[in-house]
């Protein structure tokens, strides 16, 4: 843009003309003490709970402890810029973040400020980060599937739009990988009439990890429909505490406007830890594992906001995938049990499976989806029942098989089938698979077509079979996609196609 010096002068003069407007009137208080990211202030008699307050040097905070003598506020910025005796101003509004499609493709902090250097976000709307979850009458049962693109999850632990499905496991078991794959797989929905917009909330993670993740999303074209909310490990605890709520407000925009949203909270254990730190510094009484008494409410009020709306409200949905990290597989610790009880099921990831090469390391026995079944397409439902049964029988016999050298024929057959089932459920990262392809390969395995294939060749067989379907029998895949069921006729066609491929394999 070409602006001459005199034009700049005019611009400045017109702005300065307005300077001499009204007197600034603010309700103020005084900082009594400051430390550990928490300020105690006097005054601020009418401040609201969760209200944004302004300290000098552009540092903002949130009023949390409203006591008789003083107000405890947590700081979102550098507490070294605030000193005792400083004036603190009320802003009159609770913490709000910008929402809308303008945030897609952006990396923002929990206050909605851009962190990606792509310029300001010109969002037209804002929403308070703390909002009440919807009541019973505004909701509708979960009925549409949310495909993660992962065979083991979509077949046995299906997730529906509006569901809360916990991803739980020890460190380095692939929890974030599942969430990222789920986001990447939503790309296919953007060519349909019900696209899913995603929000990824990174809490307490290394900045390098987040940068890598954003690059991965960008490489897979997933950033176009995703917003990343970041509160790094180096950010103050209050920012880590509000990050999930901010992300949720951004996701609720899609839900409330008749669209579909998917939000990943990665992870809520770190948010709970940040909240514990904040609560202890605010001198709130500690309870079990030193967490404050309201740590259950911390997560329940967040996860209750994920919902499927009724038709009157536009049928929008917000699906939540919270992540919890366990220590040494201990699911009975305080935070894991809390979140397990709040969510509609969990995907449990096992270290031994992960180290054994089963990736995603989903422990099918401990994982469950309480409401997703009704959202699953018929075709998948039909084959998943068989898959679950085969795997359950395999697990029972697997340990036994290690000791016995002579096995009867039926037991050996079950073990053979189980091993192949486990093999086809393995999937690489960042390569989500469409539902029809998942159905095709699981169908082939459950019909016993893989039983005589060498275990090492199963992967190769899977790739070849899917290519064969795509090139020569694409009508089968299309029919699964359009009808969502495997009719007898289609079953016969698929059997024929698989046999045909087997001959050439």
């Amino acid at each position: 843009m070409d602006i001459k010096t005199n034009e700049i002068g005019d611009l400045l003069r017109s702005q300065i003309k307005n300077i001499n407007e009204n007197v600034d009137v603010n309700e103020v208080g005084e900082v009594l003490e400051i430390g550990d990211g928490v300020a105690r202030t006097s005054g601020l008699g009418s401040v609201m709970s969760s209200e944004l307050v302004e300290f000098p040097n552009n540092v903002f905070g949130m009023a949390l402890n409203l006591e008789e003598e003083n107000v405890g506020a947590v700081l979102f910025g550098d507490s070294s810029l605030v000193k005792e005796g400083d004036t603190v101003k009320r802003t009159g509004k609770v913490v709000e973040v910008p929402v809308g499609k303008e945030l897609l493709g952006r990396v923002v902090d929990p206050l909605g400020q851009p962190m990606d250097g792509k310029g300001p976000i010109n969002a037209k709307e804002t929403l308070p980060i703390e909002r009440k979850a919807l009541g019973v009458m505004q909701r509708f049962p979960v009925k549409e599937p949310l495909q993660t693109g992962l065979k083991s999850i979509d077949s046995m632990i299906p997730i529906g739009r509006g569901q809360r499905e916990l991803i739980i496991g020890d460190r380095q078991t692939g929890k974030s990988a599942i969430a990222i794959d789920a986001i990447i797989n939503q790309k296919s929905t953007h060519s349909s009439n019900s696209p899913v917009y995603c929000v990824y909330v990174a809490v307490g993670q290394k900045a390098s990890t987040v940068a890598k993740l954003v690059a991965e999303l960008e490489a897979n074209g997933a950033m176009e429909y995703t917003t990343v909310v970041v509160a790094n490990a180096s950010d103050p605890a209050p920012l880590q505490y509000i990050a999930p709520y901010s992300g949720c407000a951004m996701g609720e925009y899609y839900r409330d406007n008749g669209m579909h949203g998917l939000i990943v909270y990665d992870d809520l254990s770190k948010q709970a830890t940040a909240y514990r730190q904040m609560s202890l510094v605010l001198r709130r009484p500690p309870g079990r594992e030193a967490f404050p008494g309201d740590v259950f409410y911390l997560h329940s009020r967040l996860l209750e906001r994920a919902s499927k709306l009724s038709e009157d409200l536009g049928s929008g949905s917000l699906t939540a995938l919270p992540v919890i990290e366990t220590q040494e597989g201990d699911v009975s610790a305080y935070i894991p049990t809390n979140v397990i009880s709040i969510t509609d099921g969990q995907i449990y990831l096992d270290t031994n499976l992960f180290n054994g090469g089963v990736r995603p390391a989903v422990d099918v026995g401990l994982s469950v989806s309480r409401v997703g079944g009704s959202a699953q397409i018929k075709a998948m439902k039909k084959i998943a029942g068989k898959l679950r049964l085969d795997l359950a029988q395999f697990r029972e016999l697997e340990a036994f098989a290690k000791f016995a050298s002579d096995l009867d024929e039926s037991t050996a057959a079950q073990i053979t089938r189980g091993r192949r089932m486990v093999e086809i459920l393995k999937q690489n990262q960042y390569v989500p698979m469409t539902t029809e392809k998942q159905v095709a390969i699981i169908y082939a395995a459950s019909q016993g077509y893989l039983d005589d294939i060498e275990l090492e060749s199963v992967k190769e067989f899977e790739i070849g079979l899917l290519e064969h379907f795509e090139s020569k029998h694409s009508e089968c895949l299309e029919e699964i996609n359009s009808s969502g069921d495997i009719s007898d006729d289609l079953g016969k066609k698929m059997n024929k196609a698989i046999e045909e491929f087997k001959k050439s394999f």
Partner: protein
Amino acid sequence: MKQNLKKINIYSNLLNDAVNSFDDFIGVKNGLDEFNSSLKNDLSINTFFKSKTIDSKEKMSLFEKAVSNSMSVILVEVLKVVIENNDINLLKDIAKNFTLLSKKKLNIAFVEVVSSNEMNSDQKDDITNSLSELIKKKIDINFNVDKNLIGGLKIKVDDTLYDSSLQTKLENAKSKLVGV
């Protein structure tokens, strides 16, 4: 801690019960402030009153001699009890609590006026009278100077800050121009 709060309440309530006019209040408040500042600034006075080896009677007679002409009777009596009970450490909180209680009782507003230059007494009177009329309360006013204001005034009435300083206006203009 709780014991101290109880004591602070008792002492401040005693003082509050005794003040019935704005002038009384100012007298007691100034007396407390002066005593507090002399304790803070003069180590020998502080050590004398806090000493456990000096007899409390001796402390009280000396205190009475020193302040009986400059302090109201009720304040002297209350402070004597404070000295006798070795509660000198609580004086700051007693003064704070007393101010809060009297503010409610006598309908007083605390005003702080900050200007960029020292004001003369006429200007101060003008501001005091206009403010008192405007907020319909008796006012306890303090005048301060802050060169950073550049021009204009900052007036703080209790918890509300009226800011017409040039410094704030320029800062607001800056954020508007920069678009932050």
